[in-house]
């Protein structure tokens, strides 16, 4: 296997059993056949659709010639998180959605799975990320947050010879790749392995450090030549309905989607109710609902205030949720949480639809109604030293968008010091 993971993480066999790969790996012959199906378009729409502009036909044709190392390096040159993106990207609306095969009534090329094939080879060979320059640069850069945007920024700068520090308030790096992606797409050890590869470039990581106050930023400004803010979004919105707060068991029985996902993925806490209700119909809501099913909930319902056509989740995620047995209640607005006064346990969620109310049996409620932006931090981080990217800057898109942002910021930061170093 590849480089040892320096970030301590205890793999959970029960989680592995309940969350096998959604899209299994190709074997060599499958990959070769699929790679050869690629037309090798000129100025390929898949590459244009990818926020990191991975040269898709180039890496696929390298699989076709069994130049797997060249293929992986082609991917990594554009996207330092090419391994996790191959698993978490919503390829249906990105590269594969742009595949010309779709206009020919044919299956698009399985770009995501081919990318994973090349990246798996890279890991198996224990390969390392290449440096882009042998120069040693004098400037020091700090990236706030250890999610995909910061990692991409840090890697780009480290590859160009800068000293880079990443500071993170959590115990583990990777951001949502470690804490928030559905387990059957990406497991924490795979996310951490990818970060370890970036650490090998010489990037320093500091964990458990929160940056909140003006004084924290001032300290960074005095120590570093540039500051990249890649802090993502803030806490999830809370449900402001009666019962959401007075319940003594709220911490156990009302848990927001990101917390619920992080909990089973990284803390070994696999607690789930029997009748789970998820409020909201975005991609995170779907991840939480499917996870609840996989963890053993008998009934999982998604409650959404609009109809099917208004749901923010991708169509393929919706289809997946239905296959996993998740039930959808459309045009339903939660109005109150009811608990058993004696035990404090939740028993139902009261919802309004049209003019009337109905009750859904519920012993675990998972709000998934979006995250608030970290406005105060972003407003404080102004000035020539500051750069930003990822969810905190784009409003909350995908990992690949964060990587693209972070890399662009890294390139811009490096360029800004070009004159100074010349």
């Amino acid at each position: 296997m590849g480089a040892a993971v320096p970030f301590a993480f205890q793999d959970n066999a029960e989680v592995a059993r309940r969350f096998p790969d959604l899209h299994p790996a190709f074997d060599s012959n499958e990959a070769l056949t699929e790679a050869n199906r690629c037309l090798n378009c000129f100025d390929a729409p898949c590459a244009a659709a990818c926020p990191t502009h991975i040269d898709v036909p180039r890496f696929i044709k390298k699989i076709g010639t069994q130049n797997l190392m060249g293929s992986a390096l082609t991917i990594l040159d554009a996207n330092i998180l090419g391994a996790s993106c191959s698993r978490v990207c919503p390829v249906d609306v990105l590269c594969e959605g742009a595949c010309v095969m779709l206009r020919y009534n044919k299956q698009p090329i399985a770009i995501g799975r081919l990318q994973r094939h090349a990246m798996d080879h890279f890991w198996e060979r224990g390969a390392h990320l290449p440096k882009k320059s042998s120069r040693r640069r004098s400037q020091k850069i700090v990236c706030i947050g250890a999610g995909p945007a910061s990692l991409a920024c840090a890697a780009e700068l480290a590859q160009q010879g800068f000293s880079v520090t990443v500071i993170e308030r959590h115990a583990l790096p990777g951001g949502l790749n470690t804490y928030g992606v559905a387990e059957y797409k990406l497991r924490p050890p795979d996310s951490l392995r990818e970060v370890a590869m970036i650490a090998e470039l010489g990037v320093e990581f500091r964990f458990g450090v929160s940056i909140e106050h003006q004084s924290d930023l001032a300290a960074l400004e005095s120590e570093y030549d540039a500051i990249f803010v890649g802090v993502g979004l803030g806490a999830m919105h809370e449900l402001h309905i009666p019962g959401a707060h007075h319940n003594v068991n709220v911490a156990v029985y009302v848990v927001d989607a990101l917390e619920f996902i992080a909990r089973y993925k990284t803390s070994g806490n696999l607690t789930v109710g029997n009748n789970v209700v998820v409020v909201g119909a975005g991609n995170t809501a779907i991840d939480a609902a499917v996870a609840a099913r996989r963890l053993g909930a008998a009934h999982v319902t998604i409650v959404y205030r609009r109809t099917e056509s208004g749901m923010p989740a991708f169509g393929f995620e919706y289809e997946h949720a239905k296959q996993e047995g998740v039930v959808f209640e459309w045009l339903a607005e939660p109005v109150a949480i009811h608990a058993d006064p004696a035990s404090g346990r939740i028993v139902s969620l009261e919802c309004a639809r049209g003019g009337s109310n109905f009750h859904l049996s519920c012993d675990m409620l998972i709000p998934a109604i979006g995250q608030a932006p970290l406005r105060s931090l972003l407003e404080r981080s102004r000035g020539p030293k500051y750069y930003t990217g990822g969810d905190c800057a784009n409003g909350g898109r995908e990992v690949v968008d964060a990587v693209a942002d972070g890399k662009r910021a890294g390139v811009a930061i490096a360029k800004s010091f070009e004159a100074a170093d010349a």
Partner: protein
Amino acid sequence: MPDLSTTFAGGIRCPNPFWLASAPPTNCGEQVMRAFDAGWGGAVWKTIGEPITNVSSRYSSVDWNGQRMMGLNNIELISDRPIETNLREIAEVKKCYPKHAVIASLMVESTRDAWHDIVQRSEDAGADGLELNFGCPHGMSERGMGSAVGQVPEYTEMITGWVKEKARTPVLVKLTPNITDIRQIARAAKRAGADGLSAINTINSITGIDLDTLEPRPNVDGLSSHGGYCGPAVKPIALNMVHQLQNDEASRLPISGIGGIGTWRDAAEFILLGCGTVQVCTAVMHYGYRVIEDMTDGLQNWMREKGFARIEDFRGLSAPKVTDWNHLNLNFKIVARIHEEKCIGCELCYIACWDGAHQCIHLDHAHSTPPAIEAASRARISVTPIPRLDRGVQAEAPLARVPRVDEDECVGCNLCALVCPVESCITMERVENHLPRETWEDLVNGTPHS
């Protein structure tokens, strides 16, 4: 139902023109009988001669784009079984299948007595015809047989002559392609009285080298040897040689076509160039005798559609349409048309025309070069479309990636139509230029307007 039965080279009758070539599929009687049950019209027995010792391994292949065995190479020799065994089984097969063609492929040492003896014994066993293996390119040639004979017109003529002194059944000479001009050998065979030709035998080849061990394939204890190449890859070479033989009066004899025939379509092409029967090996080695079902079925359906009642009705019809380059009309003008309703926007025609042809397909009106177009795409910022964040963003117009042909510059080379993955998306259209037919020969002779 069109009639596939045919008579070849003055007397070999068979229910259809599909024969198994002399090779592993015709090793023994049990195999040949199963092949006839499956529907094959004839079989050329695995070459009979003094038994040899083979090596292992024996085969290697060239795969292409995930497809196995586009080309197959072998270093196997002639039959490794005693002559008596082979002849006894030929007799058994003929007894059970009197209407099928069984051809004895022969290779013995180059003496008159040896050839007289084997001819006599083969015909006594009931063979319907004899095929002289003057083509085997490996192993036997080093012993003065196979292609060592077939590469020297004098030897071919001499041995064919010996065989003809004795033979009562039709004699076919199997030609090797491993020679500068295959007609030299065909002419020698014809001079000696051969009744037909089988063409082509396998092509000298080294299929590849293992890039881990640096050892060539097929690997025999770390070494390899050149072998004989066959399968789909060799068909165009075989078709050309068949045509050369048909087009040369001194070579012209009935031909049993061989080389990459795997489907009825391949067979139809060989027959259209003049072959009377065809021989198949690689397709059977790949998939088994059952491939014959679609070969006969497909050929009959096509014949019915075309109004051909018998093989002879279409045999050779395409031969006159192959001519020398200096007889081609220089004033025939076609240009590429891209049917935009079928175009899927892969732009392969664009890059093929720019890098491999005449720079007359364009993506814009400014005639940007390929590097400029790629650079513009790389510089564009793309994001994952999120409905909540991207309301009102226009998707790319469906026609935005459809290339455009500059018909004034187009030379009508076909390349764009060849690379286009979509059927009938790029067609080559005749342009009426009101010029008379004029060939290079006309120009040289000063006699235009012929």
